[in-house]
C-alpha cells in the first residue's frame, strides 16, 4: 500500500508546522522521517494517521490511490506505535494485542479461538512467547514497545506508523530493537513510516530517508544518497559530524583561509558570495610533514581521545579554528599525535555550498 502525500500544510495558531509538503512512500518500503525537533516530522506522521487534520484545502493524502482525507482515525487501516508505548496498563499482554480484534463489530469479529491463534502468532513474531499473562508494568521498555508493535499489527494494518519508537529506550536496547525492526520489516513488508531525530537510527534502519527542517522536506533518498550527496548545508550538517569553514567565492575561486581547503572544482559563483565548506572528520588525514605538491594545512594537536571505534583528534589551525579529525586506530598507532604537536592536515573530501547552490 503506497502513501501519496501532496501539498500538505499545517498550522497551529501562528506556528507553521508543515509548509506545502509532498511525499511518496512506495509500497512495502520502510521510510524514516528525520529531522530536529520542531521540524514537522511528527505532525506529518500524525496527519497520515488521521490523529491530526491538515489545513483546510491544502492538498491530499492517498493510500494506494484512494483519498483518505475524509476517513476517521479508525477507518484508515493504520497501525500506530507511540513513543511511550501507550499500552493499556489494566490489560494483560494478551488482551492488549487482542484489543483491535475484540472491538470489531460483531459481524466481522473473529471467534475467540481465532483471536487466540492470532495473538500467539504475533507473540511468536515479536519473540515474546509466554508473556501473555503479564501486565505492561511487569515488562521492560523494549518488551513493551514490541508488544505495542504486535498490538498495532494484530489488525493487519495497510500502513504502519511509528512515532520515535525507540526514543524512550536505553542506548543498548535501542540498538538491538532497531536491528530487530529492520529484520521484522524484511519479513512482513508492510509499508512503514517512522519518525526519528537520530540520524544514525535512520541511516541504519530505513530504505529511504526524508530529511525535514522547519516544516519542509530538505531532501529524500536512500541512506547512501543523503549521506554521500547531501542536497544542502542543512542535510550535510544534520547527518553526521562535520567541520564547518566559512568563506567567500571570488571570481570562481573559493577561499576558506587556507589553500588546502580550496576545492578544485570551479564554484560557478560570480563574486563576493558567502560560502560554507563542510568536511567530515573522517575525510581529514594527519601528516607529520607536508607531501610534495599537495596542499596541506598546518595545525596544532589539542586533544587525543583514543577510546572508541575511531580515534578522535581535536586540532586548532593557524586562524584559531577548532577542527575534529577521526583517525582509524591503525593510522593513529602509526602517527601517535600528542597534544601540542604541530602537524599537517590533508583534505580527502569536502563539500561546498554557495548560498543555496551546491556543487
Amino acid at each position, binding site marked *: 500500500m503506497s502513501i501519496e502525500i501532496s501539498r500538505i500544510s499545517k498550522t497551529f495558531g501562528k506556528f507553521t508546522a508543515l509548509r506545502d509538503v509532498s511525499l511518496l512512500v512506495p509500497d512495502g518500503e520502510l521510510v524514516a522521517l528525520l529531522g530536529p525537533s520542531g521540524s514537522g516530522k511528527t505532525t506529518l506522521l500524525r496527519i497520515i494517521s488521521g490523529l491530526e487534520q491538515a489545513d483546510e484545502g491544502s492538498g491530499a493524502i492517498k493510500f494506494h490511490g484512494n483519498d483518505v482525507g475524509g476517513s476517521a482515525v479508525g477507518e484508515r487501516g493504520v497501525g500506530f506505535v507511540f513513543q511511550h508505548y*501507550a499500552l493499556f496498563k489494566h490489560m494483560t499482554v494478551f488482551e492488549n494485542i487482542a484489543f483491535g480484534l475484540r*472491538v470489531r463489530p460483531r459481524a466481522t469479529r473473529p471467534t475467540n479461538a481465532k483471536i487466540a491463534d492470532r495473538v500467539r502468532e504475533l507473540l511468536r513474531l515479536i519473540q515474546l512467547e509466554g508473556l501473555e499473562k503479564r501486565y505492561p508494568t511487569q515488562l521492560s521498555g523494549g518488551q513493551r514497545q514490541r508488544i505495542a508493535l504486535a498490538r498495532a499489527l494484530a489488525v493487519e494494518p495497510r500502513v504502519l506508523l511509528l512515532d520515535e519508537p525507540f526514543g524512550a529506550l536505553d542506548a543498548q536496547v535501542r540498538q538491538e530493537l532497531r536491528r530487530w525492526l529492520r529484520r521484522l520489516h524484511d519479513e512482513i513488508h508492510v509499508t512503514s513510516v517512522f519518525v526519528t531525530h537520530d540520524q544514525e537510527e535512520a541511516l541504519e534502519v530505513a530504505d529511504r530517508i526524508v530529511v525535514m527542517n522547519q516544516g519542509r522536506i530538505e531532501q529524500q533518498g536512500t541512506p547512501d544518497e543523503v549521506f554521500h550527496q547531501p542536497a544542502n548545508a542543512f542535510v550535510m550538517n544534520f547527518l553526521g559530524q562535520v567541520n564547518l569553514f566559512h568563506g567567500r567565492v571570488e571570481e570562481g575561486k573559493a577561499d576558506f583561509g587556507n589553500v588546502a581547503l580550496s576545492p578544485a572544482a570551479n564554484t560557478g559563483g560570480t563574486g563576493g558570495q558567502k560560502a560554507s565548506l563542510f568536511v567530515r572528520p573522517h575525510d581529514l588525514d594527519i601528516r607529520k610533514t607536508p607531501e610534495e605538491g599537495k596542499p596541506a594545512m598546518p595545525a596544532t594537536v589539542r586533544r587525543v581521545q583514543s577510546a572508541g571505534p575511531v580515534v578522535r583528534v581535536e586540532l586548532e589551525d593557524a586562524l584559531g579554528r577548532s577542527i575534529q579529525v577521526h583517525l582509524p586506530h591503525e593510522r593513529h598507532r602509526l602517527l601517535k599525535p600528542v597534544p601540542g604537536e604541530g602537524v599537517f592536515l590533508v583534505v580527502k573530501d569536502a563539500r561546498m555550498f554557495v548560498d543555496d547552490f551546491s556543487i
Partner: protein
Amino acid sequence: MAQAVPRRRATTPGGARARNTPAWVRWPLIGVSFGFVGLFLVMPMAAVFAEAFRKGVGVYMDSLRDPDALSAIWLTVLTAAITLPLNIVFGLSSAWLIARFRFAGRGLLITLIDLPFAVSPVISGLIFVLMFGLQGWIGPWLKGHDIQIIFAVPGVILATLFVTFPFVAREVLSLMQEQGDDQEQAALMLGASGWKTFWRVTLPNVKWAVLYGVILCNARAMGEFGAVSVVSGHVRGRTNTMPLQVEILYNEYNFVAAFAVASLLTLLALVTLVVKGVLEWRLAGEAQDAEESTKGITA
C-alpha cells in the same frame, strides 16, 4: 471530616532528615502532635460514643428506632443515593471534557468546578432559596404548578448536589491529565468506537479516582449541614437529614438520642477514612504506573 478537600499525598522520603533532628526537638514535637490529635479528634469521637451509650444499649437502639430518626436516616441515604450517580456522570464528563479538549471557556469551567468549595455552604443553600423560594425568581411559577422544591426533599437533594459536585470531577481530572490521552488514541486507531474506548480504556484507567471521589462525595453528602439546613425547613420526619436531626434533638436536651444519631455519622467517618486510605494507596500505584510508562523501565 465532611469538609475534607480531596488531596492525595505522596509519601515523603523524609527519613534521612528526621534522623538528623536531635531527640530534644523530635520528641516534644511528636508529643504535641499526638496531644493535639488526642484532644481535638480522638476525645470528641470517644465522647460521642460514650454519650450515646450512657443509658445503655436499649435506649441507644430505641433512639435509632424512633420514626423521626428513621426518617432522617432514610432521607440521608436517599440523598446520597441520588447525588452519587449524578456526580459520577457529571464528574466524569466534565473531567473528560477539560482533560481532552481545548475550547473557549475551559479555564472558566475549571474555576467553576471549584466554586462549591469556595462558597460557604450556607450561601449555597441561600442561592437555592433565592431561585426556587416563594420570593425567588421561579418560585411563583413553581407554586402555580404545585411543585415544591424549597422546604422539601428536592431542595435537600439539589443543595447536596451543589456542595458535592467538585469531588469526583477534581479527582478524575487530575488523574486524566497525568495519564494523557495516548491510550485513548491507540484504542481509536485500533478501530474501537468512542463508546467502546470509553468503557474499555478511559473508565478502567480512572476507576480508582472515581471511587475515591465517590467516597469523599458520600461523606460530604451524608454529613452536609449548612446548605441543607437553609433549604430543608427542618420538617421533622419529612425534610430532616441526620445532621439536622442531631441538632434538633440536641436543642431539645435529648442528648442520648442526639448522640446516638451522631454516632452513626461518626461510624461513617471512620469507614470513610479506612476506605480512603486503601484507595489512596491504589491511586499512588496508578500515578506511579503513569509516570513509569512514560519513562520506560529497563530490565
